[in-house]
């Protein structure tokens, strides 16, 4: 669930795609820089443009940290207000999104240190019950939600790389930039986190294989 704007910027700036995408990303970057300049010059209302563009990504990022909608909005709001206070510290060496995501990650991290989203260790999270043959979409979604919540029960050093890796649409470099860690470190932690999840939910893969076999047999 990479936010559309971020996705658009990355695509155009880092990968180099179509001219339209480049223009769109350039517009976003220009708009951010222009709004920041106006805010720093004393125009408080110019911050509204920044909030409008980044509210979605901020809320979604916070949601992945806590999986609680109300809390995610509170965290996103706090991050945006802190961004407003600290706009002068954005040194335009990195993109505005990198700076903003790093700040938001810091807000989420500190808040979760005080009030963890999940108080159980991952070993105590029960594996979802084996699905019936006629598994509905809703049942499948709720079972997936158990796995997603289990991510929050991972030890802190492994949890955040997973949260940010998937938030940034499986972009290790972007996750590393947000955390302010080397890519290698993030990759290593991600691998360890995956290992922990794999050990916790061995049944999901078997079950998937079973469903595929049944589908093939049915066809």
């Amino acid at each position, binding site marked *: *669930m990479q936010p559309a704007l971020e996705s658009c910027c990355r695509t155009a700036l880092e990968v180099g795609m179509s001219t339209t995408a480049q223009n769109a990303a350039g517009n976003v970057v220009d708009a951010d820089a222009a709004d920041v300049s106006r805010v720093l010059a004393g125009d408080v209302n110019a911050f509204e443009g920044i909030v409008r563009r980044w*509210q*979605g990504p901020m809320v*979604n990022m916070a*949601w992945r940290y806590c999986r609680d*909608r109300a809390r995610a*909005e509170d965290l996103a709001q706090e991050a945006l207000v802190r961004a407003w206070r600290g706009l002068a510290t954005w040194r335009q060496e990195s993109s505005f999104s990198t700076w903003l995501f790093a700040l938001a990650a810091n807000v989420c991290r500190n808040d979760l240190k005080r009030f963890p989203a999940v108080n159980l260790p991952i070993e105590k999270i029960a594996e979802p019950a084996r699905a019936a043959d006629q598994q509905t979409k809703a049942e499948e979604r709720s079972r997936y939600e158990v*796995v997603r919540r289990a991510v929050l029960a991972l030890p802190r050093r492994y949890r955040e790389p997973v949260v940010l890796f998937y938030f940034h649409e*499986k972009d290790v470099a972007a996750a590393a930039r947000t955390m302010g860690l080397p890519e290698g470190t993030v990759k290593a932690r991600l691998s360890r986190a995956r290992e922990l999840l794999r050990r916790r*939910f061995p049944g999901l893969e078997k079950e998937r294989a079973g469903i595929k076999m049944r589908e093939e047999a049915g066809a």
Partner: protein
Amino acid sequence: MTDERMDEILGAEDELVPSSGFLASVMERVRKEAAAPPPIPFPWKRAVPGIVVATGVFGWSAVEFARRIGPAMGSVTLPPVQLSAALVRPLEQAGWVVAACALSIATWLLSRRLAR
């Protein structure tokens, strides 16, 4: 669970749309903070003379205390404690370990307090 399966579960999530009042509530907070008067700076001009005087008084007190207590302490003779070297050395080492632990804990507590 393979990496592909994990990507399938963790990567595909519905996007949340912020509630309708989110933008307004952020801007309300920002405007409130912008309208608030700037924080009052610490009155260094007034505080510096007081700090200088307090430092002088403490220093003078320490010197006077040492001057009066020093000779009195010199007349006191404590009985010598006889400890074997085998006992003294581990005790010395334990003392250093305790001191290092205490210093680490104090530093940790201070950094936690400052980080709040």
